[in-house]
């Protein structure tokens, strides 16, 4: 830390990051006034430093577990990911004591379920957001908005048990991939509605008015002007929502039993996913082969989610709403 120089505080540039905490310029104009102000200024500088220390400490505290987790997962899981088998083979016939096999079955399952979830959730969510921003007035809109808020607060385990109660207990169906998709849809819709709503609100009203002035009907204005303008923001929201549901575990544990073989049918049989693959071998950590697979599967899942997040950021950067 730099020593305190209370005599000429304004001659120095205020410390970066805390522009507003410096004394007012002009305090140095008259020496007597400056010395009169000195105790107060010293107090401010002290507070400034204290705040900065606390801020950095909080930052380090928040960062430490993240770095720790990443380092552990990468160091323990990366060597399996470098084997081509990991990306081309399933776990069929591999017991927790044996080495070998891959995660392609689980990666496929996670991607398929994610894609199916998006295919159902995105149209519903985007149309809901369009309604709320462009059409919704009065009681119905308030009720819809309130319901979306409630959905946002639903824990994933509740969504999973809700679908289990309907799918298995009421209708007597088997636990299949599609049941998982249904519960993931419940979790994805509210997040996408909220992000899409924000994006649509960002679209300047002048664009809509210009369109109306040319005699374009409202629906066409929304389809041709509003949605394209907000497109990149909507895509970002969708990808972030997708990244969130792909790492979801509770619905998978309840509705999507694990299988070690490749299974791509959403409507029949068990479907493996990365979280359930982790869960399967989690109980065998005394076996080094199983422990390695747990770390590698965790790293694969982190990478998948990271890729989706990156894609979301890229779309946001290259296609932000133009003013």
């Amino acid at each position: 830390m730099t020593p305190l120089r209370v005599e000429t505080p304004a001659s120095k540039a205020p410390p970066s990051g805390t522009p507003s905490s410096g004394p007012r310029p002009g305090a140095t104009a008259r020496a007597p006034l400056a010395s009169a102000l000195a105790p107060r200024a010293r107090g401010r500088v002290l507070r400034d430093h204290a705040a900065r220390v606390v801020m950095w400490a909080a930052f380090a505290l928040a960062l430490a577990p993240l770095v720790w987790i990443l380092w552990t997962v990468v160091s323990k899981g990366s060597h399996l990911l470098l084997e081509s088998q990991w990306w081309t083979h399933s776990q069929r016939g591999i017991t927790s004591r044996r080495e070998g096999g891959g995660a392609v079955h689980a990666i496929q399952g996670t991607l398929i379920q994610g894609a199916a979830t998006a295919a159902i959730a995105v149209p519903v969510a985007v149309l809901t957001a369009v309604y709320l921003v462009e059409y919704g007035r009065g009681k119905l809109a308030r009720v819809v908005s309130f319901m979306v808020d409630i959905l946002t607060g639903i824990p994933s385990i509740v969504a999973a048990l809700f679908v289990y109660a309907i799918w298995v207990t009421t209708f007597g169906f088997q636990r299949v991939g599609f049941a998982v998709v249904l519960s993931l849809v419940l979790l994805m819709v509210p997040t996408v509605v909220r992000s899409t709503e924000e994006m649509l609100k960002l679209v300047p009203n002048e664009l809509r008015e210009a369109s109306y002035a040319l005699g374009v009907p409202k629906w066409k204005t929304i389809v041709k002007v509003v949605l394209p303008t907000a497109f990149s923001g909507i895509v970002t929201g969708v990808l972030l929502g997708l990244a969130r549901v792909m790492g979801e575990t509770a619905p998978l544990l309840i509705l999507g039993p694990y299988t070690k073989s490749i299974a791509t049918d959403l409507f029949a049989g068990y479907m493996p996913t990365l979280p359930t693959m982790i869960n399967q071998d989690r109980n065998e950590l005394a076996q080094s082969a199983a422990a390695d697979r747990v770390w590698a599967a965790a790293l694969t899942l982190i990478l998948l989610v990271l890729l989706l997040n990156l894609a979301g950021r890229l779309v946001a950067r290259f296609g932000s709403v133009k003013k």
Partner: protein
Amino acid sequence: MKAQRAGLLAGVAMIGSLALAACGSDDNTGSADGAPAGSSSPSSTCPTGTLNAEGSSAQKNAIEEAIASFQDTCSGATVNYNPTGSGAGIKQFLAGQVDFAGSDSALRTTPKDGAVEAQQAQQYCGSPAWNLPMVTGPIAISYNLKGVDKLVLTPEVIANIFNGKVTTWNDPSIAKVNAGVTLPSEPIKVFFRSDESGTTENFTKYLNAAAPKAWTAQPGKGWTGKGEGKEKSSGVAGAVKDTEGGITYAEWSYAKDNKLGIAQVDNGAGPVALSGESVGKAVAAAKQDGQGNDLRLKLDYATKEAGAYPVLLVTYEVVCSHGKDPAKTALTKAFLEHFASAQTQKSLEDIGYAPLPDEVRTKVAAAIAALT
């Protein structure tokens, strides 16, 4: 428009990754475990299809081996086993979610909470459900105590440790049966299974039968003693591994894998160490309890036979005697036949299980053949 192109790109990337992932292989018989692919040509009795089972985590390693070798022989068949615990397995079986359940105790024939499992199963199957003993798993009383390689415990001492009456390792009751062993004054830390478990049920049955005065609680899948709960066998075994002075009950394989100390048990005929042989003696002494092909066993936990290790569990496969779907039944039969074969049973010894004694095995094979 730029924005749309970016979105399109994201879409293409997603579909591309899907397509990339769409080419994978289920064939791990090649380089994975050294066995040449197709070394065992599919026999003519190989059905195809998928079989789903769920239940006991005690037999997980055993059934995984059996599934791996079965799928090697019958590449058209897939067997899935989810080790969610005996209680969950039976619930899913009764709910029609799985083709058979693995359970560490036979279906209850006495009511609990107003329901009799055996009746519920008969109702679901439309025919009696059979309990087929398949895997014998000794329960190791595992401890972690530095410098103590050999520990002998009697049923009363075990019961008092697990119900919290004996709290330190140098308690006189332990010292009495361990003459010549220096026991530390460390407190005893008991770990138990927090999930519903057949291991807990068999362990408490043993305590109840062998030390009825010290252990008065009714045996059950949920733990009624003292201690700290951990999930699944790996949880309790891992906790003992990490805790000096810890003790728990877990399947033999978990105790071995975690390199825990395993106590010798003295039922009255001298201390007996845990081994395939000493467990086999206890299983052979068991009596058949069910009728016809329902092969529930009545284990004599209080046995005083010399050299018989009395703390063990038998995992049953619970099946409908008359299946609802003929294709599934054929697959179930083929898999269970393979599981009960002498060769498969023998291979289980390496991973901490005891093979079924021959007289029990032939009965199981006959029952499997009678499944329709």
